[in-house]
């Protein structure tokens, strides 16, 4: 009861003082002060409008979206315009197959085809070298096959950095070069070994067959160009010329043989003695 009475008294007091307060003269800021503040407000208006972000451009609002799209277009454009990048990544975009596996298979096929077409005479040693070469290629092929799964797994990471792909491509190219070198070295080594073995233990029947083959090839190649790769075959052809009593041709062929196969003049060579005999026959006549 007393609380309500106090509140009523206070409300009456408040009203009385308020009425009296608002009857008095009220201080106001000077006109100069008003003008200074309003001028400042006018000057700050442009800043306020800019800072509030009303005029934010479309590019600024979607900066992240645009930058992402531009990056994707750039990478895709590079892949489309530059086929070497496709190889680096290991993907043939048109066929959707890993490029390096195809390359390895084509390399094997082309190697065998080129060898078979370039060799006019089927020699056992050469055949063996080809077989060994094929083996060496097979031994090298796992490297390629190791590289190709890596490239296949990289298909999912096409949009990753190109530097990693460049490194992978370089590694695969190095593997290819190394395999080619190994193949050549193996070919040379096996050819020499096969020649020695053949010369030492060549059966007489096989020599006769080779003589017949040489005759046929000489007839088909009257100019007498030596198209053989081994001294043994050349020596067989020389023997065939001597057997046919074609002395002049045999003399010319012998000179060519010495130029091409100087190892025949070495006493260590297994055909040295036989060659010297034929040479003595030719020079004595």
């Amino acid at each position: 009861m007393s609380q309500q009475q106090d509140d009523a008294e206070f409300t009456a007091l408040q009203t009385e003082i308020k009425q009296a307060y608002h009857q008095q003269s009220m201080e106001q800021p000077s006109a100069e002060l008003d003008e200074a503040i309003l001028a400042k407000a006018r000057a700050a208006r442009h800043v306020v409008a800019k800072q509030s972000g009303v005029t934010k451009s479309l590019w600024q609002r979607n900066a992240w979206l645009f930058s992402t799209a531009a990056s994707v277009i750039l990478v895709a454009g590079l892949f489309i315009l530059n086929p070497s990048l496709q190889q680096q990544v290991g993907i043939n975009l048109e066929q959707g197959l890993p490029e390096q596996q195809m390359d390895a298979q084509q390399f094997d096929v082309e190697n065998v085809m080129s060898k078979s077409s370039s060799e006019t005479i089927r020699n056992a040693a050469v055949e063996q070298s080809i077989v060994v070469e094929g083996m060496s290629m097979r031994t090298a092929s796992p490297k390629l096959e190791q590289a190709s799964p890596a490239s296949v797994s990289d298909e999912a990471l096409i949009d990753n950095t190109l530097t990693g792909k460049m490194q992978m491509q370089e590694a695969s190219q190095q593997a290819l070069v190394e395999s080619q070198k190994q193949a050549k070295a193996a070919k040379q080594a096996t050819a020499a070994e096969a020649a020695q073995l053949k010369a030492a233990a060549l059966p007489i029947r096989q020599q006769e067959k080779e003589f017949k083959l040489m005759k046929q090839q000489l007839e088909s190649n009257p100019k007498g160009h030596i198209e053989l790769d081994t001294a043994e075959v050349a020596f067989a052809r020389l023997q065939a010329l001597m057997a046919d009593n074609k002395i002049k041709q045999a003399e010319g062929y012998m000179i060519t043989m010495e130029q091409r196969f100087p190892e025949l003049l070495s006493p260590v060579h297994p055909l040295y003695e036989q060659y010297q005999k034929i040479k003595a026959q030719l020079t004595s006549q």
Partner: protein
Amino acid sequence: MVPTLTQSKDAQPKDDTLVPQVGSDEQLMLDYQAGDISAFETLYRKHKGPLYRYFVRQLHDQQLAEDLYQDTWSKVMNAAAQYQVKAKFTTWLYKIAHNLLIDHVRVVKPLDNISPLADEQQMDSLEADNLNAPEPQLQQQQQLNMMKACIAHLPAVQKEAFLLNIEMGMTAAMISDIADVTLEATKSRIRYAYQSIKQCIALKLQETR
């Protein structure tokens, strides 16, 4: 430092943002934010007198009061870009003014120790001017001058609460939010201020008789 309106307790709205009414202070502020200078002019004319007196009647230093008054409006302009309607504009405006007052004056010199010489001198001069006025008007003018002198003698915290209540019609909740004190303390300050003014005027009237 410009206060954030989310600091308010009693006056804090439930929603993060309020929908301002057309022509309200909050809408005028948003219009100024969008670049409408006339909105700011309207807002300024509406609040310039009470805000000016808020400083002048508490500081008794005309130059300092004008400086702080100008600083308050500068802060309003600078904060306009980030302004969001989360409470009443007047609460925000006087919170800025209160903080400036605290920063510039109370830290250096407590207001309670300031002697209101300027008001007394002004009152004396007014009394001298009113000697030639008719008797009823003279009595009324004397009472007004007594009230002004009594307000000047109030403690600083009571004076601030009284001025905010009588000038702007602010409730105790709004004042407590501005002054950052409890609601009960603010109610007490307002009540004591009115009672002190009444007693002061009665005392002065007895002295004159």
